[in-house]
């Protein structure tokens, strides 16, 4: 009998994981949440536009919103609203349940009874959740752009509004349409690294804690604490010491010019941490009793 190579086994298991995510309707639930966020975002912008237009107190804002809100701009705004909060939550819960949940239900043992190395099982879960993360980003991009293009305009110059909180450089500028599309795709692509870092973190915690609730609450609580401390006024001095400082690499694509050096620097740290989390999680799972 021909034995499948470990690479074939990983591909087979990754397909299995994706199929499980699909059958558990995790793709559709995620799209539902992202749709709600997009609609809320759209409603919020319309309300603000209506308010500012009728009050006539802030004419420059009305002008900017009238001129520069389009599908590209709207999609970037929705990504900003979801990639730091909703997506980590979705990914955290689904990653923990697909590993610790299956371990609690002994489903992981059913797979481990097969002639496949444990690290391959662990890696296939990482790959499947990374594919799922990519799906989340593509769904957000498609959905938010479609809504933005429909209710505002399909394309145009975009206004980058005070990314100081993110880039640490006080700047507001108008990015021409020719560059805007590239920035849109770049921020989405870089956000995928952020999400894969989180997948690895949650998988490691699932392997360490083995209980679904613990594997969700501890890393998610830690992540949100770091995120809020990093973004809250007067708490910024701790920012450089937080473990999340490197993961939002997409923010550098919103500077002008793009901060490629910072992207490379933070990207390397993010990849190194991702690899470290996978190594720790894989090692723990490999030596665990099932």
């Amino acid at each position, binding site marked *: 009998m021909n034995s499948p190579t470990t690479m074939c*086994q990983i591909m087979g298991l990754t397909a299995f994981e994706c199929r499980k995510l699909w*059958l558990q309707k995790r793709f559709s639930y995620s799209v539902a949440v992202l749709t709600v966020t997009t609609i809320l975002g759209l409603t919020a912008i319309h309300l603000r536009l209506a308010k500012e237009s009728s009050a006539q107190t802030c004419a420059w804002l009305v002008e900017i919103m009238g001129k520069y809100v389009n599908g590209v701009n709207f999609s970037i705004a929705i990504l900003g609203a979801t990639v730091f909060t909703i997506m980590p939550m979705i990914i955290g819960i689904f990653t923990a349940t697909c590993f610790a949940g299956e371990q609690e239900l002994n489903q992981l043992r059913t797979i481990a009874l*097969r002639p496949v190395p444990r690290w391959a099982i662990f890696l296939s879960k990482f790959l499947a959740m990374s594919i799922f993360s990519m799906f989340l980003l593509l769904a957000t991009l498609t959905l938010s752009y479609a809504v933005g293009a429909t209710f505002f305009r399909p394309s145009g110059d975009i206004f980058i509004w005070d990314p100081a909180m993110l880039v640490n450089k006080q700047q507001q500028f108008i990015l021409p349409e020719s560059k805007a599309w590239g920035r849109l795709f770049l921020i989405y692509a870089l956000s995928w690294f952020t999400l894969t870092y989180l997948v690895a973190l949650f998988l490691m915690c699932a392997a360490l804690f083995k209980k679904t609730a613990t594997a969700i609450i501890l890393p998610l609580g830690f992540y949100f604490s770091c995120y809020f401390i990093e973004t809250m006024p007067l708490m910024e001095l701790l920012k450089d010491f937080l473990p999340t400082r490197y993961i939002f690499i997409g923010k550098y694509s919103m500077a002008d010019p793009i901060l490629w050096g910072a992207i490379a620097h933070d990207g390397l740290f993010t990849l190194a941490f991702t690899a470290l989390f996978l190594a720790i999680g894989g090692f723990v799972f490999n030596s665990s009793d099932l």
Partner: protein
Amino acid sequence: MSDYAIEASGITKRYGSFVAVDRISLRVPAGTIFGFLGPNGAGKTTVIKILLGLITPDAAAVAIFGKDLFTRRNEIVRSVGAIVEAPVFFEYMTARENLHYLTRVSGPVTRLQIQDTLRTVGLEAVADKPVRTFSYGMKQRLGIAQALLPDNRLIFLDEPTNGLDPHGIMGIRRLLRQLRDERGITIFLSSHLLSEVEQVCDHVNIINHGATLREAVVADLGKGHERLEVQVAEADRGKATAALRSEGFELATDEPLADTTRLLLFRGGGEHLPAMARALVAAGVDILRLGKNHKTLEDIFVELTHDHVSDHGADRFRV
């Protein structure tokens, strides 16, 4: 090629100061049904998990089909299937999908193979229904199907008739015999049900508190535990006992029966029955019944495990 599917010695597993498995050795002949018998908590599942490489023992030497488990685990598991504790599947998937995804990491498995295996376990008609709609018995059978694929030669079944109704139990037993006889599959069957082991197994290893108490061919297990029974009236009890003792028979038990008669059990095989009859007649005892006492595996099991039971206080229903 070894004649034994499993050869293991010195299997030991400790959890802190608690010794879950204490130097157990096993030799499972290929192509047989091997019963691994013990009360709940005896350490059966722990041994199975060790033999499958799911947990790491503190000490053990294990060879499966002549290959060392700890250096060639994945190679060995290519021809080994198992149900450990309970059959667990992905409930939102159909039986066919579960088998497809789970078995394809072991090697190429054709649709026909899956179909044939589903037919073997009697699940062909429900192959495309989600597992969540299955009864426990159907899941057990799906577990066996999963353990058989792709073309496994050794399967471990941990309490496979747990939770089944009598029809389900008979169906599983029939299936196990069929797998051994028609496909030459070695079955390692763990159970606390003595009747199950007695009816389907060729060999048995009885364990309690993590240690082997007895390993034997099931047919030979009764040897050394044979009894001859004499039923007499209460009034004849003393006469009968004295007469048989004087002939060298050793009294094992003396039980009063509900109808004011006594059942006396003496050690010895059926060949001593004529001598026993002569001695009783000579002593003027009215014999109500005389014959071989058919000791079941259950009796032997209770006899073997009785002295080792340490949790009487916690388990009031123990014999």
